[in-house]
Every structure is written in structure tokens, then in C-alpha cells.
């Protein structure tokens, strides 16, 4: 709910690893194909998969996992062929973990039994420490003896996530893993997933409707619509695009590259230098000199003609208006702003736009409330 700006350690090293996926799925009795994609995705980091309900997200994950036998497809993961015309590695030989959209625990095993099922079959023995970390993060210590039918929806989902992690996958497929969880729990699991990504360097495909989660986690995004890819690229590229259909445009924002230049231990803040100026963000205990990324959502950006240093808004950057664009919501407009070499987007009422008499090329100040930064 609150992810407006985001800082993540930069992982976008030059990327030789990649996942190539090309699938065409047409279900029997269906008029058109439910999935028709040809994708090249980074073989590391988190790729967010977006799309309306029924757009083919689950189908894509199922194809990658080898669960959808109907797929005409090619799939290679970091140069290993998983599927092509001649070969098809069966699911159980693919080193992946899958969190299903419905928890899908084994009903004849307790939560503990479900976890053991994965532990027993993992390629490497899991260390007790790692095991404990997973259990604690998911907050399932107390329910391990219960059967799935005795668990709440969220508890089931957490056990399912733990199960998928304990198999120690080399590719993690997660289908709306946090949808049924409350904020507090999400706040515990998200950093864990971040750590997972950074410490194990495994690629994660992450279906989610929540921009918070995605903004926080993902490096790359794919947007599906009716089985086709309508946008893909780095998260920033995808979400500064003004031409995405309504629904996505609410999520419009920008990702800025920066470096940590100062840490304010007293106020637990970190100063990040981006091309257009400095940002104060909550301190994520990253070291000075670290490359980080900041996410700025359009809805959190306000404009001012002058620099107000008596406001609680810490982040005020010089900006130049480069494009003004109406949205499907008549009261609103999107404004693309150049901040240094970066582009950010602001979402304003048409009326403010008019009152401030904002014009293309105009210089003004973009205000971003740092209190809204997560982490």
C-alpha cells in the first residue's frame, strides 16, 4: 500500500544468463489461444508478471514448470534446454520451486509433513539454520502439527511458500504468493524474498497484483493481456509508460538509479544521489557508495513552483516538464518530468495543472514525501 520509493541493491550486472520462453497454449474448446508469448527474460533477479485476471499469468508459469502439456513451446533456462520440439524435461527434473495460486498442500500430511516432503527431495540437504529461518519468516512454528484442513487460508499459503523454498530451487515460480496475507506478514516475508534473491541469486518469476510487492522486489516486468505480452522490460521502463491501459496507469511511476552518499544515523535516513538531485529515504543499512534504486510513484509526486523548505516533504527536486498527458480519469493528468537525466511521472488533478499553469518546458519543483518510502 505504501511503496512509493524503493531502494534495492543494484544487481543488474551485465547479464549473460537469460531465460527464453516461447509458448502457445490453446485449450481444447477455446476459440483463441490463452497464451501466445515469445519472451527473453533475465536469468537472475525477480521478474514480475502482471496482467488482468485471465490474461494467462498462471498459464505461463505452468508452461515454464512443464505442467501444461498442451504447450507448443521452447524453453531454455540459463542455456539449459527445458523444452523444444524434440525434448521435454518433465517437471520433477526441473530444478524449480512453485507456489501455486491455491495453496495445494498435501491433505494427508501435516504442515510439517508437507515441509519434510520437500526437504527429503531437495538436491542438497538444508542446513538447520536455513530451515529455522524459513520457518520463522513464515511464522509457522506453532502450526506445524496441524493438517492443511485445520489451517486458515493464510497459514496454508505460508506453509506452501515455505515448502517451495525448502526444495532449494534454482528457479522460483510464485503465483500470487502473498495475496491472502496481511500487511504485517507481508512485511516479514518480503525482506526474506529480497534476501533470497540477493544471497542465492536465483531467478524468481512473481505473479502479483500488488504494486507494493512488485515495486519492492522486481527488477523486470512482463505485462500480459489476453495471452499476449503488451509490455516488458525493466520495471522502470514498464511503469513509466503512459500508454498502458487503465488499471496499469494507476501504477505509473519511475525507477531512479542512485548511489548512497550519506547516512543519517540519528534520523535513520539515507541520502541517495540520483542524476537530478538528492533523495532522503529510510535507511536500509546499505553502505555508503552502494548503488541503489528508488521507485517514485506518480501519485506521490506533487509539483510546486518554488522550493518550500518549511514543509515536512524532505525531497524536493528541480524538474522540467517534458510531456503532459490526459488519463482515462477526466479529473486527472499525468506529467512527465525530467529530473537530471532521469524521468519521473507526477499525477495531478487537471485543476492544479491549470491553476499552476503548467506548460511543457517549464522548470519547477517536484516534491516527494519521503515518509512514504518503504524499508
Amino acid at each position: 500500500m505504501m511503496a512509493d520509493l524503493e531502494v534495492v541493491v543494484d544487481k543488474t550486472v551485465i547479464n549473460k544468463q537469460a531465460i527464453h520462453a516461447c509458448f502457445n497454449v490453446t485449450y481444447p474448446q477455446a476459440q483463441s489461444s490463452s497464451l501466445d508469448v515469445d519472451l527473453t527474460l533475465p536469468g537472475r533477479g525477480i521478474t514480475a508478471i502482471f496482467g488482468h485476471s485471465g490474461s494467462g499469468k498462471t498459464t505461463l508459469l505452468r508452461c515454464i514448470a512443464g505442467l501444461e502439456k498442451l504447450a507448443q513451446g521452447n524453453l531454455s533456462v540459463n542455456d539449459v534446454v527445458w523444452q523444444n520440439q524434440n525434448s521435454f524435461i518433465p517437471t520433477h527434473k526441473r530444478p524449480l520451486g512453485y507456489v501455486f495460486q491455491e495453496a495445494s498442500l498435501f491433505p494427508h500430511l501435516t504442515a510439517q509433513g508437507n515441509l519434510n516432503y520437500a526437504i527429503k527431495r531437495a538436491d542438497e540437504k538444508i542446513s538447520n539454520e536455513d530451515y529455522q529461518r524459513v520457518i520463522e519468516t513464515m511464522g509457522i512454528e506453532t502450526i506445524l502439527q496441524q493438517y492443511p484442513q485445520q489451517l486458515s487460508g493464510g497459514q496454508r499459503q505460508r506453509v506452501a511458500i515455505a515448502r517451495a523454498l525448502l526444495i532449494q530451487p534454482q528457479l522460483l515460480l510464485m503465483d500470487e504468493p502473498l495475496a491472502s496475507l496481511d500487511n504485517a506478514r507481508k512485511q516479514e516475508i518480503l525482506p526474506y524474498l529480497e534476501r533470497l534473491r540477493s544471497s542465492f541469486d536465483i531467478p524468481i518469476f512473481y505473479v502479483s497484483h500488488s504494486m507494493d510487492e512488485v515495486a519492492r522486489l522486481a527488477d523486470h516486468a512482463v505485462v500480459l493481456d489476453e495471452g499476449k505480452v503488451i509490455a516488458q522490460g525493466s520495471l522502470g521502463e514498464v511503469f513509466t509508460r503512459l500508454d498502458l491501459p487503465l488499471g496499469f496507469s494507476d501504477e505509473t511511476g519511475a525507477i531512479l538509479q542512485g548511489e548512497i552518499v550519506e547516512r543519517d544515523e540519528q534520523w535513520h535516513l539515507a541520502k541517495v544521489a540520483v542524476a537530478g538531485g538528492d533523495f532522503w529515504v529510510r535507511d536500509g543499512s546499505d553502505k555508503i557508495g552502494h548503488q541503489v534504486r528508488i521507485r517514485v510513484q506518480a501519485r506521490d509526486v506533487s509539483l510546486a513552483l518554488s522550493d518550500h523548505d518549511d514543509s515536512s516533504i524532505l525531497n524536493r527536486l528541480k524538474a522540467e516538464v517534458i510531456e503532459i498527458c490526459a488519463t482515462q480519469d477526466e479529473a486527472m493528468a499525468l506529467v512527465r518530468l525530467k529530473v537530471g537525466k532521469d524521468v519521473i511521472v507526477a499525477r495531478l488533478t487537471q485543476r492544479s495543472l491549470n491553476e499552476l499553469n503548467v506548460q511543457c518546458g517549464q522548470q519547477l519543483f517536484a516534491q516527494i514525501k519521503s515518509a512514504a518510502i518503504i524499508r
Partner: protein
Amino acid sequence: MIFSDSDIAAIWLTLRLATTVTLVLLIIGTPIAWWLARTKSWLKGPIGALVALPLVLPPTVLGFYLLIAMGPQGVLGQFTTSLGLGTLPFTFWGLVVASVFYSMPFVVQPIQNAMEALGDRPLEAAATLRAGPIDRFFSIVLPLAKPGFITAAILGFAHTVGEFGIVLMIGGNIPGETRVVSVQIYDHVEALEYAQAHLLAGVMIAFSFTVLLGLYWFQRKSPLLVLK
């Protein structure tokens, strides 16, 4: 003891036969049921019907045909002879083969139904957890289809205990080898030894009731396959 020696021999033989047949049925019936449950082939219907077919023949008649087939001139008989096993009628294993044939549908059908009710999801989940087909079968299908297996075992066991027409036909009523309790009771009835018949039938019922009760109790303990 109120039982004659031949009664006791018959009881033992029956237990041996029923246990063997049930085991053989579960071992043979499970893959058949699995195939029937999962296949999308058009052969599913015909094969399924074929499995159920022995049911519609009266046991004595089925026994008669089996007697021909397993005899020296029969296909089965020539096969077993060529294997050096001789012919099967009038042997314990002849009874086993015949009973297996006869009770097959009672075992295949419940297992098949239970496997069909499983759905794909648990198997898919297991596959993503690195479980291969055999592993999946033992770790997921078997425990989840347990009620079906128990029903199958109950029906198969009980039916073999009660089986009689075929046993009569194939067995040759050889004491200690093929004279099972059902034949023994039948003999008592035919010989108008009603008291003996009542006694033996009573014991058999009491015993079977206990076995069945045990199985039901076992089944009750299995966790419900129920979404909350």
C-alpha cells in the same frame, strides 16, 4: 473342540487363499486402476468393461470356462505347462488365479474411483517438489486413495472368502489344498448336517465382522480429504 479337523483345515486354507488373492488383486489391480483413472485413450471404455465382465457370469459357469482354459488343452494350461508349472486346476494356485479373475472388478473399481477423485493438483505439486512418477505414486496417490484401497481390500477379501462356485469348479475339493470354508459349509448343508453348517457359518461371520470392523476403524483414522 467342536470343529472337525477338516473344518479347521478349511478355515486355514480360506484365510490363506483370501489373503493371497487380496494381495495379488491389489498388486495387479492397482496399475490397471491407475491406467483406467488417468488414460484419455478410447480403450478406457472397452478395457474397463472387460475388467467388469467376469461379474456377469455365474461363478460355476465362469469356473467351467476357466477349467477349460486352464486345462491341458486350454490356452492358459498350455502356457503354464510350457513354464513347467503343470496345469493349475485342483491346486491352490489354480484357486488363486480363478479368484483373482473373478474378484478383479471389486478391486479395480473402488481404486479407480478414488484415484479419479484425486485430481491433478496434488500430483502437480509433488512434481514441482522433485518427486518422480514412482515416488508420486507411493507418496501421494497411495495415501490419498487409501479409502479406495481399503474398500477394494474389503470387497476383494470378503468376496474371496464367500466365493464358492469357482472354487468348487476349479478346486476339486481336495482337503487342505482346495477345500475352503465356503465349500465345507456347502457340503454340510448339502449333507443335511445343518448344525455343523450353522456353527461354521457363525464363526466365519464373527471372524469376518471383526476383520471388517478393524478395517473400518483403520479407515476412520485417515485424515479427511476435505477442504475446510
